[in-house]
């Protein structure tokens, strides 16, 4: 029987996986949370964004179109989780 996961659990799992993908951009002290701004807090540039998106597509087996991405998506980790969550539904 398939167990339905609670949305909160799903977001937590997505965040955990994102943490792993984000390791190269994190310093020893930073623990990302849903409020983390990937652009100003982690300083991701255009190349880093492309690498991050590739990492997300691989880890979550999803495809993200450029039309779904803008700076708002990366201004809060919660927004990026929304995009991934939408893809996994």
């Amino acid at each position: 029987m398939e167990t339905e996961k609670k949305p909160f659990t799903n977001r937590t799992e997505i965040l955990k996986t994102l943490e792993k993908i984000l390791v190269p951009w994190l310093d020893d002290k930073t623990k990302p949370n849903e409020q983390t701004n990937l652009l100003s807090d982690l300083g991701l540039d255009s190349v880093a964004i492309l690498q991050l998106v590739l990492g997300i597509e691989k880890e979550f087996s999803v495809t993200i179109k450029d039309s779904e991405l803008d700076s708002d998506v990366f201004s809060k980790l919660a927004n990026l989780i929304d995009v991934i969550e939408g893809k996994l539904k």
Partner: protein
Amino acid sequence: MKLFDLLKRSAAKFPGRTAVIDDACEITYAKLLSNTEQLSKYLKSAGCRPGVKVAVVLPNSSVYFAAFFAISASGAAIVAMSSKMTVYEAAGFIKRADVSLVLTEKTFADNLAEQLGNKEQISIVTIEQNSDGVLKIGIFIQRCPKVDSDNSDVALMVYTSGTTGQSKIVMLTDDQLISNMFIYKAVMDFEMPNVVYCSLPLHHIYAICAQVLTHISCGDTFIAMNRPFFIKDFFKAVQNHKVTITAFVPYMAILMAEYSQPNQFDLSSLKYITLSGAKTPKHVYQKLTNAFDHIKFINTYGMSEAGSRISIAAPEPAEFPVESVGKAMPSVAIRITDNRGEVLPAKHIGQIEVKSSGVFKGYFNQPKLSKGMIVSGWLKTGDIGKLDTQGNLYLVGRKKEMIICGGENIFPAEIEETLLENPSVREAAIIGIPDDRLEEVPCAFVVPGDSFCSETDIINFCRKRLSSFKVPRKVFFIEQLPMLGTSKINRRKLKDIALDKLRIDK
């Protein structure tokens, strides 16, 4: 005439016109001029004058514009640096360029001061601006500036690769930059006024010449973007601010060509997109011209040592072959030479050489190398190309080891030096491997030392020290680096090995 005079003239002509819009504020030409003069007054009082080097480490913003022109107004040389550099990279560059004063943000100043240490005679000054455009100058560390009297005519210093893998600092004078800019402006034959979308980092020579100097002299409005490039952000800005022109490097053009629903935005104001940094692929160019037939997509070619623009497919790009980067700009001569320096006829491939009033003064602290770059007035670009019988220029490749990743130049030597600081690395070599979007990405070959390290260890080691685009995408461990003769790494062989391994991994 100084670079500052371009701003001064436009501010006198169009005082009430919006000069810069950024995330924090919107300022007019009159306000930009007064901020520039306020900062330049401080710089002069701190001893900045011709021969002093002042670095600007700021993101794209109205503050950047004030800092850039204030340094020029003080007579000092502007040392254009990336605001995305790590403090480790920035400190190294500041020392190499013999910078006396750094203009930066508060957040960066602390870390930079720590990295530079107490021994260095370098001042750090922070500048910030509130939402009303009022400039606040903070003196973090103030020391007496050094004057380099041999280079008192230098207006701008930028990073470049030259023809070998080592990075160098190009010195350009006001006359070289201004003459090149006026020629570019005349060829473009702009409909005015323009709204300029500035997404390329403003330390790039392409952005400085084709955007900052050109459009400040026209009295145009800049939308200064301090964030990574997203094509959707660009479309939104075109719609909201009625953007008329921007400058792209190939990966931006690819994102625009691939965008699935551009029609949901009103892009009717957009008239020109200049394409440079590397050659935009033909199929991408054709896709763009088909999908956006009201926009002129203008291929152009330039390099820092040429003060920047060399050739251009303007004012009517449709009149030039799609594969070309246009014709030499007026007052610029292009020729193609073979390995012995003999001039080749049309359609023959060889090194591109350039002669113009914009050709640089030389590399900082490398007089011998500078002399070798210019022979009988001809600048050896290190790029490989050909001319057709009509004088259109075609780029074929690069003689240099430089890697271009998403419009950013990468010098293998810099990454290799960083890798060698890791005790687990005995030898290292960096090569570029093809990437669909970024053109190339760096890939490392490492000969391990006595202690163990993994690919992730190496990547994380680099992450802490280098900007994102320089961090190797892939690390291969190898017993011995293939060599050409006794001292030169056989990079061609390494590239073949990397491509083979990547094919197998797929």
